[in-house]
């Protein structure tokens, strides 16, 4: 048999096998039903408009640390941090005795289109911090900002340094104009005023942008790999939870989104010390509390080069960077991150416990 004929015969065999696996996967998918996300027990303790503040029920004896407030990005839903019991950063933190609060920005609609960015940072985030401080009778809490939420947390900490005992940023962009930052390159020529003139920016639009970062992997290979799961129910459920999260993108409030894109992506104001929020200058040098910067080595959304410069800009003498060998989403759900990130957070916070 010639090499070409051999190859063709193998192709036919593989195609047959693929078809069978595909049928099994489709049968199993049909039987899955609605997947559940965000499974840890939590209570809503504060709410303002669409913004909700949750407190998670403890799962272990308290580590006697100040509460940890997680500020997630506005561009995605925060249940990614508590996707399922065995893939939950929040659950791991609870098992380590940390008192966890989480801000959920909700699904902004037309009523939010004129809400400025400083209202989200100095207003909603600020009032959530104030609420937790009062509820716990303490003067400063620990803040964990994730992705865009990390950038917002940095801004808040720079403006209100006395309220933050320790700051952790996770896969958060700081320098928005580095050569590896594809989103930033694309954002430079966008007419942001025009984009937001007709209202909020839809989640569907954002989804398309994210897919366009790696179109072949995210629109083709991912679904071909689904077939390889051969109907494994647990794997398929994991897949569907991720699929739900990826496409469950909230619309972005027009004004806040415009300001974020212009001030951060287009003008890179944060690292240029040129940002003003709530009529107050935001200086990263004002961030003097201990800072832990966790970034992903293979992050296609926030490349390491966008996060690493934080150390050079903050005023803190206690700065630590932790690189995890995962991608952006892997930081929340991968086994590798699960083994190192929560334990490192707990260790780092424990070493800097102001209540001790």
């Amino acid at each position: 048999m010639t090499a070409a004929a051999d190859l063709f015969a193998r192709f036919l065999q593989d195609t047959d096998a693929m078809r069978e696996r595909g049928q099994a996967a489709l049968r199993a998918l049909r039987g899955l039903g609605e997947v559940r996300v965000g499974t840890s027990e939590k209570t809503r303790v504060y709410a303002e408009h669409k913004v909700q503040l949750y407190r998670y029920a403890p799962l272990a004896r308290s580590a006697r640390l100040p509460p940890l407030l997680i500020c997630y990005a506005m561009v995605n839903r925060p249940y990614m941090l508590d996707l399922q019991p065995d893939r939950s950063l929040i659950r791991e933190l609870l098992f380590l005795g940390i008192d966890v609060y989480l801000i959920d920005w909700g699904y902004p609609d037309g009523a939010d289109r004129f809400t400025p960015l400083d209202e989200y940072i100095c207003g909603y985030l600020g009032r959530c911090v104030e609420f937790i401080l009062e509820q716990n009778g303490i003067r400063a809490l620990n803040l964990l900002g994730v992705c865009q939420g990390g950038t917002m947390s940095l801004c808040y900490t720079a403006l209100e340094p006395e309220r933050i005992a320790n700051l952790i940023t996770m896969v958060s962009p700081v320098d928005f104009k580095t050569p590896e930052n594809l989103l930033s390159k694309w954002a430079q020529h966008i007419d942001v005023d025009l984009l937001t003139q007709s209202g909020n920016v839809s989640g569907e639009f954002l989804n398309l942008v994210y897919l366009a970062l790696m179109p072949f992997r995210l629109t083709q290979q991912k679904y071909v790999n689904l077939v390889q799961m051969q109907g494994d129910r647990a794997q398929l459920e994991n897949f569907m939870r991720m699929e739900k999260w990826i496409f469950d993108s909230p619309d972005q409030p027009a004004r806040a989104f415009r300001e974020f894109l212009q001030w951060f992506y287009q003008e890179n104001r944060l690292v240029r010390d040129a940002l003003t929020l709530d009529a107050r200058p935001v200086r990263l040098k004002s961030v003097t509390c201990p800072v832990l910067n966790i970034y992903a080595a293979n992050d296609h959304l926030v490349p390491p080069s966008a996060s690493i410069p934080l150390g050079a800009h903050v005023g803190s003498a206690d700065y630590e960077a932790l690189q995890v060998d995962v991608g952006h989403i892997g930081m929340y759900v991968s086994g590798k991150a699960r083994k190192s990130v929560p334990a490192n957070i707990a260790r780092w916070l424990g070493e800097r416990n102001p209540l001790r």
Partner: protein
Amino acid sequence: MSDSNTASAEPAILKAWDDYAAACQALFERFSDPKGDRGGAMPPAFFGAFKDFAKNLGMPSELSGASHPKPEQMLAGFLPALGCTREYQEIVKRMLDLAAEFQRCCAEFMEQGSDIGRQAMEAMRQSAQEEGVLSSTAAYYDAWIDKAEQAYAQAAHGEPFAVRLAQLCNVMSAFKVERGKLLEALARQLDWPSRAEVDSLHRQVRELSLAARPTKPTTRKPRKARVK
């Protein structure tokens, strides 16, 4: 002046009117006959009259689009919007212009995509020469995805890609703005709440809530967390 001279010297506008009246009559008869062919073509006189009329004014006379494949060219020679519907005509014209612009940007963007495909295929060919036959169809597929992503990333990081993508986005945004204006007008006509009205209300609510906001959030007594 003889009759024949009168006929040959008949002004174009009168001829157009006669044609128009005849076409209307033909159309009326067609619709009056219950067994008639109501779905038939429009009487040519309609277009014949328009063609003469347009030709005299130096406007494009061919409406079928066959001689003007690009909508912006079709519209370029028309008169500016006139009359009491002028503003709506302007909006529609801008939307048509933007739709044409979007098509053009899309075509440019797709052309870029075909370059990426060619580069990926070339990379596959080279890798097949260097690495030989792969073990399975799945391995070929994965290799294709890798090469395609590499070729895409190379293009996507370039300035021309970013410019074309932004053009697409900007044109789409501009179209949405114009569409919003039309919907706004429609809402006013039907006495529906319009976007402008709702926006105005949101602004007022925001101002009121800022004025009424307490200096501190609602406080509750500290609560100890209990281990489950």
